[in-house]
């Protein structure tokens, strides 16, 4: 019983980590809390759904399609809204506000166009069976989520710490002006970050959409609350922290629902977030940036 709970918690945590991965990347490299992130999550799920349902594509085609759509949307929105603010060196709250307006606009348009009813992936998109690990039962969607999260976390880590692109991204995160003096094209790096974050959001949308099998325009908005909790608990822009925080949050939610009351579950993220703000505002891992006057 406990083992199953723990496994469920870890799977849920993996979805949160997966969701927060791209968000953290945006916060870390672009230095902006981009509230439209949840929209890319929704968009990925909706596009993949349309691919499966209306075009009859297999999941293995629909998934990259959803990821690509989300990535492109992220690039377009960032270029249209945030690039001008970056150029004008506007304060960080201005960027936050612009994405806030944008996300309301985007969701409103989406729900006017599609309605707010819940849509589902057709039966048979995923194999129906399940795997038993001792007493723990894992469904196909859950396994897919855990595996994808592992692959993406590892991939992102390798990208950031082992490649030239990753080095350039870290340089841009730290000081865009100095990075451009190193012959790094800052606009291109910003685009790469947006694309990558959008793709990660899209992947999360498709997989989490499959797992919950309830897709509607505001699903990203609901998920954002967890996203905020994860980036605060993990420390703003800290990829490792985000993964740890996602897992902690998932396990805490499942345990709270199992041992206290299922109603409590939705309050866990917020409670943990406020607790961390009280006790360890730099995040659980608390890795402050190295700077010097």
């Amino acid at each position, binding site marked *: 019983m406990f083992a199953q709970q723990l496994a469920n918690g870890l799977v849920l945590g993996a979805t949160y980590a997966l969701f927060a991965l791209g968000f953290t990347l945006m916060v870390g490299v672009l230095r902006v809390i981009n509230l439209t992130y949840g929209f890319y999550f929704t968009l990925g799920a909706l596009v993949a759904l349309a691919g499966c349902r209306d075009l009859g594509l297999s999941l293995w085609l629909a998934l990259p399609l959803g990821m690509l759509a989300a990535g492109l949307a992220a690039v377009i929105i960032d270029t249209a809204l945030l690039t001008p603010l970056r150029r004008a060196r506007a304060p960080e709250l201005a960027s936050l506000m612009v994405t*806030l307006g944008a996300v309301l606009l985007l969701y409103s348009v989406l729900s006017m166009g599609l309605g707010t009813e819940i849509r589902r992936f057709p039966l048979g998109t995923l194999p129906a069976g399940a795997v038993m690990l001792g007493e723990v039962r894992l469904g196909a969607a859950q396994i897919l989520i855990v595996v994808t999260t592992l692959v993406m976390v590892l991939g992102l880590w390798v990208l950031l710490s082992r490649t030239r692109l990753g080095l350039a991204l870290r340089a841009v995160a730290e000081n865009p002006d100095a990075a451009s003096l190193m012959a790094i094209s800052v606009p291109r790096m910003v685009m790469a970050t947006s694309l990558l974050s959008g793709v990660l959001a899209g992947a999360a949308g498709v997989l989490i959409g499959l797992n919950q099998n309830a897709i509607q325009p505001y699903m990203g908005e609901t998920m954002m609350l967890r996203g905020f909790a994860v980036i605060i608990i993990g420390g703003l822009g800290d990829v490792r922290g985000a993964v740890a925080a996602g897992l902690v949050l998932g396990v805490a939610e499942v345990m709270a629902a199992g041992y206290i009351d299922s109603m409590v579950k939705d309050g866990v993220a917020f409670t943990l977030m406020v607790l961390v703000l009280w006790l360890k505002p730099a995040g659980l891992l608390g890795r402050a940036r190295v700077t010097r006057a």
Partner: protein
Amino acid sequence: MPIWLDDFLWTYQTLIHSLGINGLLALSMYVVLAVGQLSLGQAAFMGLGAYTGALLSLHTGLPFALVLAGSAVVPVLAAAAVGLPTLRLTGVYLAIATIGLGEVLRVIYVNAEITGGALGLGGIPGRSATWIILLLLAGALGGVWLVGRSRFGRAMEAMRGDQTAAAVIGVNVPAYHLGALLASAALAGVAGALSAHSSTFISPDDYAFEAAVTILSFAILGGIGSPLGPVVGALVLTLLPELLRPLHDFRGVFNGLIIVLVVLFLPRGILPWPMTRLRKPL
């Protein structure tokens, strides 16, 4: 009262009420923005005030003044819980924590019995007279204006410019952050109670994300040069959908668009002029 005025008030009562209430909400947003912070919890504070006020009116025989006071106190407590830990951090943290507050309160409203669940609360007595709303708005505007023109307003403007430098000249920055957040929660709570007692029906959806963004759009459109800006912003954004009926159905799109356009192209809003405090003495 002349008959025509009575007629006018009767016909447009709902509109006048929402103008006054939205003006108060815009002021509550202004108070936070004026110290260089951003709260996305104004709708949550408003909702807390609305539910507190409605429940007090439905279950106790308290006079309306005390009901309003109660609706100010409860959001203030919530604001303290969320605001205290973020006071020493950058504005981004308060914004995130307050978005979270709105979502959590929504879950509570929907699940709790006393709040009427997802259906909401009905049958709230219509105790918000027009004059009460307008008097409270005028009082709040006057008070915020006078404080803004005083040494406190100057300290707030200094914090907006450079928080560290303001602290070094003796401004108690965390105290100002907290004070502003609490005052804004109280204003939003009162506005919420007034709206509950004006519409007589409330539901959790009234205080969701969209409401939070709408309140922010008032302040952004008006600009925060002076407290008049947000109030005028609220006026414009409340009247426009009335005048242009089609806008009514596209409110989300419209308010979102307003924020995007104003931040990008008119960062100081439509009333950008700052308050003058000191003139050079002759």
